[in-house]
């Protein structure tokens, strides 16, 4: 397919969901069936086009590599803002303009299908799930703008456009989490989600500012090329590391990584299909996608930071998921944990593994969420039938034995659970195995803190298998804990079953690779070659020699690259655009390590997964131990886990409350009493002074005036006495005067 056709189709894919949004928002209830079929139809068209684009892209002959891309992507760019001015960049004056555009490479093509597939199925599922909702039409409109924003993140070739759609995804997530805003829970959760995400976005924005100030462009390819040519922010690779970490902050927010993961479980207040679409399969994967996108520019230190965050996240969330009783909470923490896994994989340099897990996870996690939606839907209807509005339809403790009443939901849920637990023949096994091999190789190459990655990786794999099967056993097996509810449980309608079936089929191994024990030969991993880092020697410092133990005998096949890498080591000249598209020795070393670790990782992963499932089976099916008694014995730990490590409480107590109640109020007080007090004080002082002046004027100045008047008047009165008008008196005065004069002069 020609690049033009692919670009055109991609643009069409991007704007179709927007059209759905605009149409439903404008016409809404006037459309037939309130527009649900139109929206769903549009999404299925989008899906069809996405598949066409994917096939077209993956079957293209590879282009020559450019910095940061194994094969030059198709790009189609337009100038959004052209300022007719220049700015100084790297010592030159370059025109100030902002380009936006789309880019198609394998990463984009696969992601397009993932997003539009899940979105289309969620649309279909929602027809049944949201049936009868007051804001039915608006719901589908919101799904449309979400899909548009998410596709925008995927197809862009500039980091600014990614940020733009990143924020739009934040908006649509806000609208959808808060869809039932009448209730306090969703109202609070939507705000929390947006704000927590904004904190991460802040970091991302700072990173973007750093990149733009340094490179004068937002385009990925231009930024990568400039880094490859040895240009770093503020002239130092440390700042390149910081820029990478800043951009990763965006992923910390959106992909719910520690320490900003707390919004995601609360986001389950939204309708369950939304949870499946946004908070399991696509939006939260945006962070992982972002890391994959900027992967070439991440230095070793930045990647280590990313790996640690991913590892910590997956561990914390995994432990929390064990102790939750709300189905959606279990799935939410499981999502956080799996996202941590993907981030870990990218952080250790296992690029293909991390992104592959994103794809497989999207399928089975969407299936799990929609399955839980199907159960909640049934529970809700049953409770509605019983006029019971107090029982929580999502609480595991009210379920049990549902497999008989809901066979389709059960079967699909089980398949997805097997997939997420890493059981062979399912997609999760393939991707998880890749990640674990990556972590293993990284641990042995890096040593030190790097060893934490494989340990956490296998630990989390076991926890995942355990809590997922705990979920299955408690929901579908055993006897119904509330027979009254169980009596009215029905399987969900076809619109809800079809997406489940499709997604569960997509959770099998053959979708991604015909070899059930290795994804490496499958199309998905093959089409995701790791891009060569543009950071050159600033990547992880391991080379062939360091990775000897892990690389083992496998290195003989690639002696050519070894020689190449050796040349780099001996002469660590500043990397140039020429050399940077060639293999990076450290990445080569890691690739060998992964290859060598593959088998051992697979066996270990099988063991831990079986152990996890076995324990769950023993505890919840065979009841080898009494769960309640055990929980009581480890009560502090259980409370700690079920309270989610107290993250929410800590943030509430130490961040939100002091901030909202103290800082803002202190500022407002300061404003009212100090700043405005000073203003009013000046006014008061002026008025007091004017009052004083008034007094002065009245009593002193005017007093003097009046005094002169009184003075004169007084003398007038006194003197008047002398003016008697009688000659005799005057004569007496004259005589007395003459006598006085006489005495004075003589």
């Amino acid at each position, binding site marked *: 397919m020609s690049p033009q056709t692919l670009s055109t189709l991609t643009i069409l894919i991007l704007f179709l969901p927007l059209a759905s949004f605009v149409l439903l928002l404008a016409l809404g209830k006037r459309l037939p069936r309130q527009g649900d079929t139109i929206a769903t139809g549009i999404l299925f068209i989008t899906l069809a086009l996405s598949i066409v684009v994917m096939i077209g892209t993956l079957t293209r002959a590879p282009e020559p590599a450019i910095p940061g891309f194994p094969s030059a992507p198709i790009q189609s760019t337009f100038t959004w803002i052209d300022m*007719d001015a220049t700015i100084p960049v790297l010592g030159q004056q370059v025109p*100030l303009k902002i380009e936006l555009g789309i880019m198609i490479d394998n990463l984009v093509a696969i992601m397009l299908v993932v997003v539009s597939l899940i979105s289309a199925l969620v649309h279909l599922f929602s027809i049944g799930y949201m049936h009868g909702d007051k804001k039915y039409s608006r719901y589908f409109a919101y799904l449309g703008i979400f899909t548009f924003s998410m596709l925008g993140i995927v197809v862009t070739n500039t980091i600014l456009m990614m940020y733009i759609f990143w*924020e739009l995804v934040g908006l649509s997530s806000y609208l959808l989490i808060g869809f039932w805003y009448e209730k306090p829970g969703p109202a*609070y959760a939507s705000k929390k989600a947006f*704000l927590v995400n904004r904190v991460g*976005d802040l970091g991302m924005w700072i990173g973007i500012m750093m990149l733009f*100030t340094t490179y004068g462009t937002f385009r990925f390819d231009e930024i990568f090329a400039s880094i490859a040519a040895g240009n770093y922010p503020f002239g130092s690779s440390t700042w390149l590391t910081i820029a990478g970490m800043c951009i990763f902050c965006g992923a910390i927010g959106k992909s719910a990584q520690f320490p900003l993961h707390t919004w995601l479980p609360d986001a389950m207040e939204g309708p369950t299909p939304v949870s499946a679409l946004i908070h399991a399969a696509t939006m939260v994967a945006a962070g992982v996608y972002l890391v994959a996108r900027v992967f070439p520019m991440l230095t070793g230190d930045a990647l280590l930071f990313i790996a640690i965050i991913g590892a910590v996240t997956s561990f914390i969330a995994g432990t929390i998921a064990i102790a939750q009783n709300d189905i959606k909470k279990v799935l939410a923490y499981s999502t956080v944990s799996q996202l941590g896994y993907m981030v870990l994989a990218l952080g250790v340099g296992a690029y293909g593994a991390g992104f592959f897990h994103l794809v497989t996870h999207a399928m089975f996690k969407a299936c799990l969420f929609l399955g839980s939606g199907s159960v909640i839907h049934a529970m809700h209807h049953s409770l509605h039938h019983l006029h019971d509005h107090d029982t929580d339809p999502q609480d595991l403790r009210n379920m049990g034995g549902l497999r008989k009443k809901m066979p389709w939901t059960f079967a699909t849920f089980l398949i997805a659970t097997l997939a997420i637990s890493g059981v062979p023949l399912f997609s999760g096994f393939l991707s998880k195995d890749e990640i674990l091999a990556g972590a293993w190789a990284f641990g042995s190459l890096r040593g030190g803190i790097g060893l934490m990655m494989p340990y956490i990786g296998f630990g989390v794999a076991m926890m995942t298998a355990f809590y997922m099967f705990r979920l299955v056993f408690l929901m579908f097996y055993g006897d119904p804990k509330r027979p009254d509810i169980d009596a009215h449980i029905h399987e969900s309608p076809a619109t809800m079953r079809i997406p489940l079936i499709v997604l569960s089929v997509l959770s099998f191994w053959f979708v991604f690779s015909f070899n059930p024990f290795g994804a490496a030969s499958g199309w998905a991993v093959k089409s995701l070659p790791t891009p060569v880092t543009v950071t050159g020697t600033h990547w992880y410092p391991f080379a062939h020699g360091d990775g000897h133990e892990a690389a083992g005998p496998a290195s003989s096949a690639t002696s050519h690259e070894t020689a190449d890498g050796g040349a780099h080591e001996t002469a660590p000249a500043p990397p140039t655009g020429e050399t940077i598209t060639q293999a990076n020795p450290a990445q080569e070393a890691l690739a060998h390590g992964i290859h060598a670790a593959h088998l051992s990782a697979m066996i270990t992963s099988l063991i831990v997964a079986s152990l996890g499932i076995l324990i769950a089976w023993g505890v919840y099916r065979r009841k080898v131990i009494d769960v309640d008694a055990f929980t009581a014995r480890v009560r502090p730990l259980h409370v700690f886990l079920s309270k989610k490590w107290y993250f929410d409480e800590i943030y509430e107590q130490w961040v939100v409350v002091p901030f*909202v109640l103290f800082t803002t109020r202190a*500022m407002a007080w300061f404003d009212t009493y100090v*700043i405005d007090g000073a203003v009013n004080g000046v006014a008061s002082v002026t008025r007091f002074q004017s009052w004083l002046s008034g007094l002065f004027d009245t009593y002193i100045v005017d007093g003097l005036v009046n005094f002169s008047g009184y003075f004169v008047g007084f003398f007038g009165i006194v003197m008047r006495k002398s003016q008697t008008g009688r000659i005799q008196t005057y004569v007496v005065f004259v005589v007395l005067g003459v006598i006085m004069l006489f005495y004075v002069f003589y």
Partner: protein
Amino acid sequence: MNFPFLSVITFLPILGMVIVLLLNKERTKAIQTTAVVVTGLQVLLAVVIALGFNASLPGINNEATMQFTERLPWISIPQTPWFGEIRIDYFMAIDGLSMPMVVLTALISFLAVFASFSVNKSIKGYFVMFLLLDAGMMGVFCAIDMFLFYIFWEVMLLPMYFLIGIWGGPRREYAAIKFFIYTLAGSVLLLLVMIGLYFTTVDPATGAHTFNMISMMHPAENMKEGLFATLHSTPRMLAYIALFIAFAIKVPVFPFHTWLPDAHVEAPTAISVILAGVLLKMGTYGMLRISFPIFPEFAVYFQIPLMIFGFVNIVYGALCAMAQTDFKKLIAYSSISHMGYVILGMAALNVQGMTGAVMQMFNHGTITAMLFLLVGVIYDRAHTRGLNEFGGLYNKMPLYSFFTVIAFFAAIGLPGLSGFVSEAFVFLGAFQANPFWTVLSTLGIVLGAGYMLWTFQRVFMGTLPEKWEAVMSDVSPREIFTLAPLAIIILFLGVYPSPALNMMTTSLDHLVRFVKASAPAGQAFLGGF
């Protein structure tokens, strides 16, 4: 250009005022129609001017490239003792800096007229004052002669005083006096500097002193001797500071801002709209039109302090906003925060930052105007603005909520809406100038979202209190008419900002280069910060 566009657009409201004065005060409809027609014509004229505007001419300190120039001798007293010849020109012109402001003023005034229809106390007097205010505002943005500028600056003060003082809320007199005296204090400083500049500047063509601002921007040719003749001298520094305070009061910059919340809370809706939409912009406009080009060396010297002022405004305004329980006061403080972005952007002294700043002036004008209109809508119905007294308006007033979502998210700086574009440019510019203060200022992004979404949760989500069930009705056609144009502009400029940006870039780029060229390298106050 032979047709005196700028005079017509400035004095049309005066004509309208005269007509209103002649009308009987009982003829409400006729009075309102006059105001609508006059401001409507103003909008038309603004559009005509914008269409005829040549965006490739820089203007600023270059008289030949100013556009729509009108220059007539106005006051001329030959040979007075001491003063020599007194010559004041009637000099109006615009460039890329004032063009967006002219459009904004016309637009906001027009919409404010419709928002004024809910005023029912001495309507005739109200519209007389309103139109006078309109003329004053428009004049400020068109005047190039500083004396003329000062006259318009003061003209607008008086009607504002009465509009708040007579048609305002319960504490209107306090607020009006505070506003008036505060601004007047600034005006005194402006007047002093203006007189100083007058006696320093000589127009070589006539040999007389001049108030022409463009002449003042060329000290080498026009300032041979006098108080402000020596660059980098203390008198010029004091003059820059005095001007800064004069304009800072108007913006308002912390700590000169406390008149604003009071004035906003007490002013009627339409006047709040004008106050936030146009009046505040005069402060930043004054800095860019007068302080920066006339005292360029101190614009550079005080770059970092100005950035710090921007940062403080952004963060402090947002923090104060978060603590408010009065909807209008919250918007007033958010205004302070958003004007901080303007200060930050112009302090960047590069074309990105400066363009972001002027674009932010325009965007803040439209977004905050919309926010005040929205507050007015519920105040008209409920007669209270207490944030905690509402809830659940989303279901009761869907269309109103739709407009609110647009305005709120534009204020938060959501991409796709105009606020994002200007904030992004401000940050990109400021980061290049000084990463430290810029990174601190980005806190405003989170804080802004915080108070806006919290407000949205309190007012629109949840359930409607029983007592509002009867009174709260969705927006009326008249209200839609005032809100919709702003929403469209916000959306349009968010998706396609080039029409606004192209108008200003050339001038602002010129301004930046000109200012920077006037400063010796490496000299800056708090430079190491």
